[in-house]
């Protein structure tokens, strides 16, 4: 899958020195901006509006930059919670199994992804590779940016033409992130 990813950074007067996206880490329990899909490099999937919104909310004083990345994501390494029903079903079943085993029903998705990453790394010789992925894509349904259009006039069913997709790369490499350049301020 090829797409453009938008990435927002605080304006620290260093735009020309920024060569790569920032790694999002857990910063403590009280930080509201902890990463949704675990630790990684985050992009809005082709969504300049969300990049601006994030900048306005998160960096109201200093302002912000928006960078664009040319993303090339190999299907076999993409855990796609947006468009792959198999991946959606699998994460639900794995989580159900995890809760049955541990009783940790309050774990959120970000925490569960960290569990899966840990399982993969736990014993490389055993090759318990239940999560052979390098990036995740998910939709943020809490964002009520509903840009709806009905399938048929007079009928209720509709679709959303402006969903908010997040892409998280676990690590950077030139295959996945082929270009990274500033687009705001231009």
């Amino acid at each position: 899958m090829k797409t453009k990813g938008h990435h927002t950074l605080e304006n620290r007067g260093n735009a020309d020195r920024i060569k790569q996206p920032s790694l999002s880490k857990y910063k403590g329990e009280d930080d509201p901006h902890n990463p949704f899909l675990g630790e990684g490099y985050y992009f809005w999937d082709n969504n300049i509006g969300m990049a601006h919104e994030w900048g306005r909310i998160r960096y109201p004083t200093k302002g912000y930059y928006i960078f664009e990345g040319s993303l090339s994501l190999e299907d076999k390494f993409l855990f796609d919670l947006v468009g792959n029903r198999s991946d959606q079903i699998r994460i639900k079943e794995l989580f159900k199994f995890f809760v049955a085993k541990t009783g940790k029903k309050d774990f959120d998705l970000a925490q569960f992804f960290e569990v899966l990453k840990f399982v993969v790394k736990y014993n490389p010789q055993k090759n318990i590779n239940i999560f052979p992925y390098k990036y995740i894509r998910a939709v943020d349904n809490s964002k009520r940016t509903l840009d709806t259009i009905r399938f048929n006039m007079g009928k209720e069913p509709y679709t959303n033409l402006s969903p908010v997709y997040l892409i998280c790369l676990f690590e950077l490499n030139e295959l996945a992130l082929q270009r990274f350049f500033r687009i705001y301020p231009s």
Partner: protein
Amino acid sequence: MSKEVKEYITLFEEFFDEISKEELSAILSKIESRKYHGITVSDYLNSLDSNIDVLKDFYRHNEIITHFENSEHKNAPIPSSLTKGVIKGEHAQSIELGEFSTPVLLNDVQEFSSAGRNQAYYFPGGDNYGYRLAA
């Protein structure tokens, strides 16, 4: 369950067979301590009292709804500055005092209300969201 999912579950089972209870408990505690829903309603509301700008954070807004589901937080104090009005925003871009026209009361929040304290409303859909803490 599909064959593919069963294979993943089998692999997951192997992991649980492999790891000791102590080691599993340690790693889960470590991951659990990173939870981003860690803030309590009390802390959240207190932070609102001191800095209403924090409402611009859409995600915290969602968290408070989440935490109303937890019975242990139902007795959280409501700051006086928030008991007289309605706070709303559009995509978290602008926050202003005003009124919502069609409030929707969520079941979990209703339970909070029925405790005889304050009311909280949630406004899903379209550009409207927000909550109300009214005496």
